[in-house]
């Protein structure tokens, strides 16, 4: 095709720009917002990219008749904002974003749970830390008033707005990395039952759990101002609400407990009747497999050959709170596995629906 045959791009109208920006603002999409001003953006008249191309359909709203989009469109269409945006799209070099839509975008992103988008927008507005503090203050206020679920929600939003200044090469929004932190929690093999994380004194477990789930020791430390019972309730609420499929996991966990209990009872019988040296020989293959099946239930996978740390990573990524109620143990066949474990004298396991009243589980052989 010769140069003269190249189809001419239609000039981009302010209405199109407003619609695209309003859609990014309404959906709390910081990436699309920045893309509007990119050198190759289809909204720039000097770019060869065209907004009419189907590949850019995602930049336009599917439904313009919703209140969030209409509010965003009203903000973007104000002469002050739209004139500034159009001038920036004509300008060569880095664009200066208008603050009004950016603030609305950040608020919408928080409402939609897009915390990394929100934190980037707030960071650009230089109000991220103050917004974080605002949510933490509201969380403290709600907890003081006895509304633990609202308090936990506010704390979770504040944690979602956290930033990692040690990220390489540039600071980035901090994101949960439970599969990594859970490995650190269980890094040392428990030589005695008391060393197992779930069997440590409850105040210690609660503090560890709050630091682990919040991913920020400073934020978790604010909760030290409350009584232990309140902090325990906060942890239980956090565990339940941070995981949409917690009840399914709890059912699997209780099933795993029953398996481990059956295994423990059989091992105890052998030790009492014959002696510890006979455990390996006297165990029938079906009972010997019970701890492995329990580990499979915890991880949610069907693979029986996974190592304990693989299961832990699976567990922490899918059900972060679950990593606080498991321990490492060596079972028949000299195999190290991950097993369910909780303090029977602590109400925490019951509060999160993990306790099975029919069995007595403390330590595992």
């Amino acid at each position, binding site marked *: 095709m010769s140069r003269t045959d190249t189809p001419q791009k239609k000039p981009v109208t302010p209405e199109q720009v407003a619609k695209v920006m309003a859609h990014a603002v309404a959906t709390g999409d910081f990436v699309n917002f920045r893309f509007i001003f990119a050198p190759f953006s289809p909204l720039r008249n000097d770019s060869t990219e065209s907004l009419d191309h189907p590949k850019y359909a995602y930049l336009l709203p599917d439904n313009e008749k919703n209140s969030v989009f209409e509010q965003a469109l009203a903000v973007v269409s104000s002469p002050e904002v739209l004139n500034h945006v159009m001038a920036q799209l004509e300008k060569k070099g880095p664009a200066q974003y208008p*603050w009004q839509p950016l*603030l609305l975008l950040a608020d919408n992103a928080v409402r939609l749970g897009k915390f990394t988008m929100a934190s980037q927008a707030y960071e650009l*507005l*230089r109000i991220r830390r103050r917004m974080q503090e605002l949510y933490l203050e509201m969380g403290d206020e709600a907890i003081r008033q006895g509304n633990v679920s609202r308090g936990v929600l506010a704390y979770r939003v504040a944690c979602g707005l956290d930033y990692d*200044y040690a990220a390489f090469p540039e600071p980035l929004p901090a994101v949960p990395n439970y599969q990594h932190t859970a490995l650190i929690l269980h890094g040392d093999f428990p030589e005695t039952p008391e060393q197992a994380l779930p069997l440590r004194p409850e105040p210690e477990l609660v503090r560890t759990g709050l630091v682990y789930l919040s991913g920020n020791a400073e934020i978790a430390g604010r909760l030290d101002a409350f009584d232990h019972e309140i902090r325990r309730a906060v942890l239980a609420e956090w565990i339940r609400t941070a995981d949409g499929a917690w009840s399914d996991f709890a059912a699997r966990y209780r099933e795993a407990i029953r398996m481990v209990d059956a295994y423990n009872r059989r091992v105890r019988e052998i030790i009492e009747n014959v002696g510890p040296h006979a455990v390996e020989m006297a165990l029938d293959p079906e009972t010997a497999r019970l701890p492995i099946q329990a580990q499979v239930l915890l991880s949610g996978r069907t693979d029986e050959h996974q190592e304990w740390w693989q299961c832990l990573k699976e567990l922490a990524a899918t059900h972060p709170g679950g990593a606080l109620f498991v321990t490492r143990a060596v079972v028949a066949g000299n195999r190290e596995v991950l097993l369910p474990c909780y303090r029977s004298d602590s109400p925490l396991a019951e509060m999160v629906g993990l306790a099975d009243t029919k069995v007595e589980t403390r330590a595992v052989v």
Partner: protein
Amino acid sequence: MEISRTEITEERKNHYLLEIARLNAAFYILRDRERCEKYLADRREVMALEEEWRAHADDPQQSDQLRRKFDQALRHFLSTYMEELMLEAGRDPECVECSNWDAAHERHASRVLRHYRQRLYQIIHERLPYYDITAPRIDWEERKETARATLDVLSAASGAPASERGAL
């Protein structure tokens, strides 16, 4: 290899590493007259560039160029003195003798120093005129109301079935 014999929290370890690294760097710079003068000259230059940019912040012609110049100088200053030199000081025999700094400290410190450098950049950045966005006019009473309303929306959503909840 761990750097302490007793178990300490991550925060305390980071704080300890940063303090030792800062003391090492101070000793390393102050001990050598030439290095000390260069440090002070570089510091003065960055401060002068900041002043120059601030003075022309409203002038669109000069502002962008001055800002870039300042930003480049600031990043260079921070990476040289708040990261590289701190690690270099940890390899100096006298610093090692006084602080017992070793390879294990250096390995742990690289993330801590990067955090320190980027945090300092952020603190400086926050006091500068706005250039990447238009200067915001934040009404903190309105912010409080927005945060309250957001929590109401999220509370209502958290009562909804998991499939409708999104990230929460």
